[in-house]
């Protein structure tokens, strides 16, 4: 048995859904944030796997894309955490359930 693209894809989707589950079910904003990171990483895994097993690897599309994603993710984390801190200052909480000012009433 060899490791094929399939394995990686399934692994990536599993990781993605774990991340999603975290994002959808936890009430702490910070946890939601790193759930998002998990999802991003799952996507990165897909990129690399496709590059490794796909056609035209010499074009380096996969690694490049991953690199860019990582950069964007870094930016996103920085901003997201900053926002979390700002929110915390305002509401004295990072609980998503208490952040309901979008509501109509």
């Amino acid at each position, binding site marked *: 048995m060899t490791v094929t693209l399939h394995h990686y894809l399934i692994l990536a989707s599993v990781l993605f859904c774990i991340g999603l589950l975290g994002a959808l079910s936890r009430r*702490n904003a910070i946890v939601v944030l*790193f759930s998002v990171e998990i999802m991003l990483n799952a996507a990165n895994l897909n990129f690399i796997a496709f590059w490794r097993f796909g056609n035209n*690897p010499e074009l380096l599309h996969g690694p490049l894309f991953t690199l860019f994603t990582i950069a964007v993710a*870094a930016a996103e984390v920085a901003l997201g955490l900053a926002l979390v801190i700002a929110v915390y*200052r305002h509401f004295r909480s990072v609980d998503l359930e208490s952040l309901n000012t979008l509501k109509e009433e």
Partner: protein
Amino acid sequence: MNEVTAFWILAAIAVIGALFAIRKRNLVHGVFSLLVFFAGLAGLFLLLLAEFIAVVQILVYAGAVGILILFAIMLTDRVTGKDAFRVTSRGSFWGTIIAASVFLVLLLPTIQEIPQVDNPSNSEEIVKQSTVKALGKKLIHPYVITLEILALLLTAALIGAVTAAQGGHPAKKKISIE
């Protein structure tokens, strides 16, 4: 240790790390398991012959992002979530259902159509040749604009983060938690 074994081990590490990260009540523990997940993923990248990406993964995620999140947790209250009687939000059941269905939606095509995959050994030579040097060249020749834009984005994110975190206006009304 052959490739297959390595894959399974690393996959297990990643999945377990991820699961712990989202299930741990203590946030600090969660962050540590997240780091484990990142490391596992880096291992998988290595296995896929993307050494540079693996290194970057370690550096950026395990190094920078992890530390950053730790700091954020330190800066906010109830770090450990000891007093939070409930970690999941309201109706987390529906969240779980939806996550599961997303998983199904993702999994179904993967299982149904077996993608036509080249024998990895065919392209292995080429993949091995694509060193950091080639990557650097690529970054300079066709993707230089993207690179520059990314640099800008990071700078903007930096400034934005500082501004946002700094606050400026103290909260006018303080909302206590229920």
